[in-house]
């Protein structure tokens, strides 16, 4: 039976925990709002980039003449995985889900006898992968999205990845990140960015919505574009830009998901702390009542004895 003082101490400590989690929830909530806005505002660029790219690819006679970022290096022996997680924990299943998906992917690739290299964005991903696949991690970048996802870092990462690709350090590059569904749910997404999967123009026109609803009216124009300087030059310039955009998009999604996940996790924690406090309070009052009763009985029976 815990004493009254013990119970009181526990109640205070749970109360301060609740204060912290509810503050974290508020912070995550306001960050989430901002992250959602910037994810929303970043969308037009990605959409138009995709449109331009598919127009351009539509003019190519065959893929063989395309730059390597599109056509691939012709091999499939070495994979680079970019794994985007948060730098901090306390956000529910956010990091765990990514790590699990990443581990499954790594093991599958190992089983096929492929070489795997891992680039971690975010500390938590590295921490959970280090135990089993530590030797595959080539680099960890931290604090990329500390103040929200910005284009500058995305461009730097893209440049680094491109350099590695040009040096033949890997053949296929895949990003694993959380896609923002709602504040409550995220979806682990595995997306290949090198070689860039060719957007199928014909398929898009028949599937509205996928391409942001622009396929229809522009489709007949493909192939009639004048190019300045030349197709090859344009494509060579556009593909790296597209790579940056893809990485930037992943960072934006991941950041918004992180805030959403943290908000939900902290909301749950706050509610749990509240429940715990209620139960402890009940227990405390009962114990106090019992003590008072037993004191009264002592007094009464003492008086009767006299």
């Amino acid at each position, binding site marked *: 039976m815990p004493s009254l003082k013990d119970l009181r101490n526990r109640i205070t400590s749970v109360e301060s925990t609740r204060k912290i989690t509810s503050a974290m929830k508020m912070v995550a909530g306001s960050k989430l709002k901002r992250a959602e806005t*910037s994810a929303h*505002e*970043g969308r*037009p*660029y990605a959409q*138009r*980039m995709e*449109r*331009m790219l598919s*127009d*351009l690819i539509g003019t190519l006679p065959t893929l063989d003449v395309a730059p390597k970022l599109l056509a691939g290096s012709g091999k499939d022996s070495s994979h680079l995985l970019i794994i985007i997680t948060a730098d901090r924990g306390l956000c529910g299943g956010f990091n765990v889900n990514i790590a699990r998906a990443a581990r499954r992917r790594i093991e599958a690739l190992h089983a096929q006898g492929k070489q795997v290299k891992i680039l971690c964005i975010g500390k938590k991903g590295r921490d959970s992968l280090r135990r089993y696949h530590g030797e595959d991690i080539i680099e960890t970048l931290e604090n990329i999205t500390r103040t929200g996802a910005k*284009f500058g870092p*995305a*461009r730097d990462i893209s440049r680094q990845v491109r350099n590695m690709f040009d040096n033949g350090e890997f053949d296929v590059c895949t990003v694993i990140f959380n896609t923002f569904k709602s504040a409550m749910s995220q979806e682990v997404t595995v997306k290949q960015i090198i070689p860039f999967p060719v957007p199928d123009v014909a398929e898009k026109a028949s599937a509205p919505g996928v391409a942001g609803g622009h396929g229809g009216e*522009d489709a007949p*124009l493909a192939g*009639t*574009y*004048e*190019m*300045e*300087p030349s197709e090859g*030059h*344009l494509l060579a*310039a*556009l593909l790296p*830009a597209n790579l*940056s*955009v893809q990485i*930037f998009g992943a960072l934006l999604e991941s950041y918004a998901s992180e805030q959403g996940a943290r908000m939900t996790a902290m909301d749950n924690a706050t509610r749990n702390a509240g429940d715990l406090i209620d139960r402890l309070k009940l227990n405390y009052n009962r114990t106090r009542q019992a003590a008072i009763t037993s004191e009264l009985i002592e007094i009464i029976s003492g008086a009767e004895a006299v």
Partner: protein
Amino acid sequence: MEETIRFEIVTPAKLMLSEEVPLVVLPGEQGHFGVLPRHAPLLSSLRPGTIEIYDGKMKITQQIFVETGFVEVTPERCTVLAEEAIPVQEITRDFAEERLKRASDALMVADTFGVRVGAERELRAAEAMCEAVDMMEKSRG
């Protein structure tokens, strides 16, 4: 009602500008070019320079500096994708000159080919930025 073309500048951060304009002049890779409504379809990359937006009386209403980017023109619209776009009046002369100085210093000490290429690109961007400021001051008189 005179004819206009839908002109957009999009940066990764946001849709910066989207309006109907009668004429816009862009700094294409192979020289400046103007885009009027019903322009032939065109894809081009841009070099560092100023985008000039004209009004119906052929006066420049807005000048926007871009560093690198791409433009897609169709008869109905003209879309600029730029990693960074800044209205010229927001650039100060000091900032541009400081950048030019830093860029030429960097080029002096560049030793490897890769660094050199990067520094040259930076220098060209800085020069274009200074030019943009010059032009704006001249046009204001």
